[in-house]
């Protein structure tokens, strides 16, 4: 994983990068100089970890991370919340879908730093006590998965799909769930699960 947080000591050679990118080597210094203006916040030294507080499933989590860390890697590698899955890591498969401020997004293309101050909800935050969220229960009831790898992303996306008002017909469900790929092709059962859970979710 080229962007694995904290990988600097295990192979990344900053000196080689600076030498290899002679044209841009001065830029970080210039950028910092610009940021010394009283109006601009300091741009951090890219070689140092940054402090960030993420609000995940209702709890504040303080992290010290590489600025390159995505929300997905922060969840999986730093907070040990491995429900959100890394499929393509390029925003194409939907396995990493989480809710940020109640909107579904792909966490692999969201920088953790940019998500500070927002409410992140993952699949781990859905169940209450020993009761599954209606969408989780509907996936079980409808056998809406085989290997299960895409399932947390499907469930997060499906909850948002219902709340957006895009679960009114099977055609709508298919269209608005197209950002979640299922390699096992459990699609008909996923559509059935979304249909089943929709009324209960809309009831609140």
């Amino acid at each position: 994983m080229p962007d694995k947080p904290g990988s600097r000591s295990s192979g990344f050679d900053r000196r080689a990068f600076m030498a290899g990118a002679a044209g841009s080597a001065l830029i970080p210094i210039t950028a910092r100089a610009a940021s010394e203006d009283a109006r601009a916040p300091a741009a951090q030294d890219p070689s140092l970890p940054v402090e960030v507080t993420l609000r995940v499933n209702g709890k504040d989590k303080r992290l010290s991370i590489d600025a390159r860390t995505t929300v997905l890697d922060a969840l999986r590698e730093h907070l040990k919340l491995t429900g959100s899955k890394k499929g393509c890591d390029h925003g194409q498969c939907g396995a990493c879908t989480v809710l940020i401020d109640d909107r579904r997004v792909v966490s692999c293309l969201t920088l953790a730093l940019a998500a500070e101050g927002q409410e992140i909800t993952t699949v781990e935050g859905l169940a209450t006590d020993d009761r599954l969220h209606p969408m989780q229960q509907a996936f079980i009831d409808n056998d809406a998965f085989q290997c299960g790898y895409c399932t947390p992303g499907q469930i997060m996306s499906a909850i948002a799909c219902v709340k957006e008002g895009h679960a009114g017909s099977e055609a709508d469900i298919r269209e608005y769930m197209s950002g979640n790929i299922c390699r096992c092709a459990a699609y008909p059962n996923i559509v059935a699960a979304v249909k089943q859970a929709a009324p209960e979710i809309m009831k609140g």
Partner: protein
Amino acid sequence: MRPFSYQRATDPGMAVQALGGAAAANEPLTKAAAQPLAGGTTLIDLMKLDVMRPTAIVDIGPLAHAWSAIAPGGDGLRLGALAKMSDVAAHAEIQRSYPVIADSLKLAASAQLRNMATLGGNVMQRTRCNYFRDVSYENCNKRNPGSGCAAMDGVNRMHAVLGTSDQCIATYPGDFAQALIALDAMVEITGKAGTRSMPFAQLHKAPGSTPDIETVLQPGELISAFSIQGRWPRSVYLKARDRQSYEFALSSAAIALDVQDGTIRDARVALGGVATVPWRAREAEALLKGQKFDDGLAQRVADAAFAEAKGRRHNSFKIALGKRVVARALQQAVTMEI
């Protein structure tokens, strides 16, 4: 991903300064050391692929409070550059008065990406040319100026047939831009000297001999808004693609018509998926004005739209497909109930 410094811009002046201050003279925007982060769906993706290598990220997300208006009014429409694609697509008045805009946004990407991506970032998205996105291909004039074009004689099924040059045939991949260019939108640009407006049609630059220069924007300039005069209820966006959903266009058409008593008084035709930049087919429009619609006219208009098209080994099908898309979109626009 290479290391970068991150800072959040809380007002436009700060963003402009942070983005422009780091820029070297004559540096194309695509190679600028400091890049703005809005939705991140293009930038973070291309940074992971090592195609884009900024050393400073300026997060302009906090500017959304000032730059995300969706404001249809009596004499036109203003859209903030940081409005999210999903919010604009779902807006009832946009659906009613500008269906070509709502549909171009709704038919793009996935629900998740539309929740993230902004209008300004959408029009600035980079091509999906595989030879551009995969750095293991050395020959890409867009990525490495002067290195050649691997697509020219490569697998170029997805590539452009209009606006190409002998340096680059990469397709402009977006949808929304075709709606903007069809409706004569203006784009508002905020930079060091304040805010200026210009026709959206002047934003993108055909590849010519400098495919690495994609727009007229300079480092330190940001798109802050789009505006459109009038209402265009009789307008459609038709998109043909390899899958029914969540795929880039093979060919698309943005059509807007003003029809009174069966006569076409004004007509706008823009093409997507087939050109290197958002493409306005003015010759096609000229054939429509003052005419009554029939299938023969649709065919002549479609032929005119692609009169200058040049296919290569794998993408010539786009010319035949594109003509059918134009003809069908015209039919839909003429017959839609408004």
